């Protein structure tokens, strides 16, 4: 019976993948209900295609922040912390939070995107400051080993891997792995530990987080010119299991495989984290049932009343002479999908905290920037939230962990929303399943992602999770699907140190770019750093005194 369900679902999803309109004709089991979430592609296309009405009203503000993801919220957070409240934050969606939003299900909150924060590195001072403000870090935020609130430290067991029909602890495959391969694991981890301690000729950490603080040593930057996979081969690593693990890490953090991610970025993943905490292993992460939404809420706490939601920037123009007196201004037209009207905001300073792929469609002039912005590629991602009546069983092998990864799967596995709760009583839970569409080029991936219905994706995810959990069809009461066409920038070969990124990282007199795209990859610490840096540069420009949050 269960096997038949599994085959039915698999064939339905296969049919859906090839012939979407016919998906309903197969004998799939009834799918649990659910909804389709995520940034609306229609809204984005409307902006891209232009033809919007002329502005109906004009508003003047000293500072406008476009984009309410982590970088935009961080910019606003820093402005507010400096006592500067003359700003407006425009967010395209109905609520801020970007990739760090939470969903609500009958089984409680769950992440819609980003779901953890590693122990902040020594350099991630703004992140530490935020955690201290939220009461999660106690004592000196810049201490080597601060104490963190135990409720946010991921409870054990943190991760497990499903491989060859069995769950094992940890993510590096161990069962039936030959000694030679294990030696390669050890050698690889040693290499990464050495990179973690290494410093470049300029005295900076080889791989820092925020990445802007990394060494500019040419020998290190040369790692950006080959792929992570080629680097592994070059270093004599040929273990298939090690290659799987590294590829998994690249897809997990960058939405792209180790064959396209640059070795600099691939090594950065393993070598940048030097965060430590009192009484806690270094590889523990901070997490919560709603993923990273508690961090976004913490950043947004001071921004209330200065946020304009449902407002998408559709035109950005620098007006040198005509503007607001003191040497020019930036005009930003905000299209509000709710009433179809356009609001013109004239700002002295603009913090652009929206993804850079939007830039060519909305910026007037600035051809060099537009040209550079076109070199970004963004990974499409699928997130599925499966509300279950009970946790899935593990009759043998490692018990249910927070992060549960499937070997040789197109997906990245799932996290369990109720992992941090202290309950003993079995009860409903939410599994958040992640899949970066990394097997094909991003544009093709986006077509696939946006071309399939919720039902088709839900069936595909259920059949994938039915491999370790045949009972998943009976347990699932809802399957909500979130699609991100442009989830994150991809640090492909040559991109991190190729020049385009640095163009946006440089300070400018009026428009500052704050999105994590400027770092080349999407991490909480990067987004926050870019937002805070843009805010601090803006404050400096405006002559407002502040204490820096940056290292």
């Amino acid at each position: 019976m269960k096997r038949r369900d599994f085959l039915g679902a698999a064939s339905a999803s296969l049919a859906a993948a090839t012939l979407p309109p016919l998906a309903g004709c197969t004998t799939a089991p009834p799918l649990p209900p659910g909804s389709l979430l995520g940034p609306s592609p229609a809204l984005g296309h409307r902006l891209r295609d232009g033809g919007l009405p002329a502005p109906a009203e004009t508003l003047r503000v000293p500072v406008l922040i476009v984009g309410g993801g982590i970088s935009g919220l961080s910019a606003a957070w820093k402005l507010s912390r400096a006592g500067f409240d003359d700003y407006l934050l425009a967010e395209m969606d109905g609520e801020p939070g970007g990739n760090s939003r939470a969903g609500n299900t009958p089984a409680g909150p769950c992440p819609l995107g980003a779901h953890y924060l590693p122990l902040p590195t020594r350099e991630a001072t703004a992140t530490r400051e935020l955690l201290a403000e939220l009461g999660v870090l106690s004592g000196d935020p810049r201490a080597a080993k601060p104490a963190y609130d135990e409720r946010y430290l991921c409870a054990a067991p943190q991760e497990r891997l499903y491989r060859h029909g069995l769950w094992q602890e940890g993510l590096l495959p161990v069962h039936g792995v030959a000694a030679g391969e294990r030696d390669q694991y050890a050698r690889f981890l040693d290499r990464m530990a050495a990179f973690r301690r290494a410093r470049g000729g300029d005295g900076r950490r080889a791989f820092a987080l925020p990445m802007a603080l990394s060494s500019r040593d040419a020998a290190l930057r040369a790692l950006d010119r080959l792929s992570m996979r080629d680097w592994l081969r070059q270093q004599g690593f040929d273990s298939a299991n090690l290659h799987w693990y590294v590829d998994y890490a690249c897809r997990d953090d960058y939405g792209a495989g180790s064959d396209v991610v640059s070795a600099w970025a691939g090594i950065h993943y393993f070598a940048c984290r030097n965060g430590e905490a009192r009484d806690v292993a270094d590889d523990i992460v901070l997490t919560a049932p709603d993923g990273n939404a508690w961090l976004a809420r913490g950043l947004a706490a001071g921004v209330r009343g200065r946020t304009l939601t449902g407002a998408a920037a559709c035109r950005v123009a620098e007006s040198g002479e005509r503007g607001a007196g003191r040497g020019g201004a930036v005009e930003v037209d905000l299209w509000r999908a709710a009433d179809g009207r356009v609001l013109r905001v004239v700002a002295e300073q603009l913090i652009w905290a929206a993804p850079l792929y939007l830039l060519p469609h909305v910026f007037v002039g600035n051809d060099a920037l537009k040209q550079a912005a076109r070199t970004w590629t963004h990974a499409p991602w699928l997130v599925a939230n499966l509300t279950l009546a009970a946790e899935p069983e593990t009759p043998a092998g490692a018990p249910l962990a927070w992060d549960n990864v499937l070997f040789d799967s197109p997906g990245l596995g799932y996290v369990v929303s109720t992992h941090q709760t202290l309950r003993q009583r079995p009860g409903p839970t939410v599994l958040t399943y992640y899949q970066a569409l990394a097997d094909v080029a991003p544009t093709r991936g986006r077509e696939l992602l946006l071309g399939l219905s919720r039902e088709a994706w839900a069936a595909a995810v259920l059949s994938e999770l039915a491999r370790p959990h045949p009972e998943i069809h009976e347990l699932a009461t809802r399957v909500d699907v979130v699609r991100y066409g442009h989830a994150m920038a991809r640090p492909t070969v040559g991109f991190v140190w190729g020049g385009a990124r640095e163009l946006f990282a440089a300070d400018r007199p009026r428009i500052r770019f704050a999105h994590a795209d400027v770092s080349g990859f999407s991490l909480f610490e990067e987004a926050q750093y870019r937002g805070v840096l843009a805010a601090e540069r803006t404050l400096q420009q405006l002559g407002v005194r502040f204490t820096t949050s940056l290292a």
Partner: protein
Amino acid sequence: MSQALLFSVFVVASCGLAYELIAGALASYLLGDSVTQFSTVIGSYLFAMGIGSWLSRYIVRDLIARFVQIEVMVGVIGGFSAAALFFLFVWLSAPFQLLLYSLVLAIGILVGLEIPLIMRILKRQLAFKDVVSQVLTFDYLGALAVSILFPVLLVPHLGLIRSGLFFGLLNVLVALWAIHLFRAQLPSAAWLRGQCLAAVAVLVAAFAGAGAATDFAEAQLYADDIVHAESSPFQRIVVTRWKDDLRLHLNNNLQFSSRDEYRYHEALVHPGLATLPGARRVLVLGGGDGLAVREILKYPQVESVTLVDLDPAMTRLFSTAPALRALNADALLSPKVRTINADALKWLEESDERFDFIVVDFPDPSNFAIGKLYSSAFYRLLEKHLAETGLAVVQSTSPLYARQSFWCVVTTIESAGLVATPYHALVPSFGEWGFVIAGRRGYAPPATYPVPTRFLTPATTPALFEFPADMARVDAEVNRLNNQVLVRYFEAEWRRVIR
């Protein structure tokens, strides 16, 4: 004649598979990890059958008589295999796996002998191709029949021990039938028949559990005499009785034996509560059997006892079943007692009540879910519910068998800012057992016990707080939610204890 023999093949094959299934099921039931148990049992069994088949070449004469004797041996050894394994597991500290695989090998060898012998007997009447075709057909059919009957009918209705005896009986009946069929060719039919009848008698007696069985067989059967069994959403609750000894098992772990539970519960409650003459409000976490509550209710000054146990099936059972109510002296029905079926941790998080005395009587930290109930976060939460001069007592597994686990609990309680006072007591059915008293200030053992006790005396009390060299303190990490070291210590330590 040949039809009759083929029917025996069917029966013999059924029995052969049944013993294999019984050994596999018992091993996974008692030892856990069913994938490993089933594959190693089936593997060894098939290997042993191969040995039997090879050995069959050395049986050259008196084929029928040998076949009959093999059937009787299979019947008796196979029939009693489940009972023997159960008995040894529950009552002796014998090396269980050694016995398990010895039995599997013995039965496998004997079963491996059966089919080759039958084929050679039948060869006298049928062509070789027919012998092979028919014998193997019935062999596999028999296996199919049992593989379906075993989970659907036999285990649910007869249980493993009686299923074993039932198949043993079938083997012996096949032997009897063979004697009858070949009586003309058997010189010593009467002697063989006598052996069969003796085996039948033993098996029937054991099966019926009547007084005719030997004391030995009786003991084996009664070791498994289940007076109550239910599966709640949280656990498998089994109450067994052997003579006057009632035992509670949760998920196959012994919780108490009525013969010595007073030692455990007196040691759990009185060293702490006897020092608190002003204790009015008491909280019991876990302990749905009401036995700790029974001890607490001996103190007249206690005005209320709040019992928080996860499983309503437990508190229901211990407030309704007459034998269990007698054991806890109707503690759960006392008007002073408030029973709450809730998650202890969630209840503590949501409640703001404070208590003069808290009894923490959770199962041993054998998995990550229960491990959370022994974490520093839990003890910090517990501290918030202690009255200013209140005390808590924590059952903390065995300082002898799980020494580092025990001291890990002590270290963890201390890490939560509480003063921990460890002590221990001998509970024969558990062995040496450990407890920890936790309070904001230091604690001194009571000079007298104001309530009647069977085990504790003021004179012997100081000895409870002395730890001999083999239980003395060892270093242990603090058990935190993010490391769960206690579950890892506990697993490693109990794995070393041979059962």
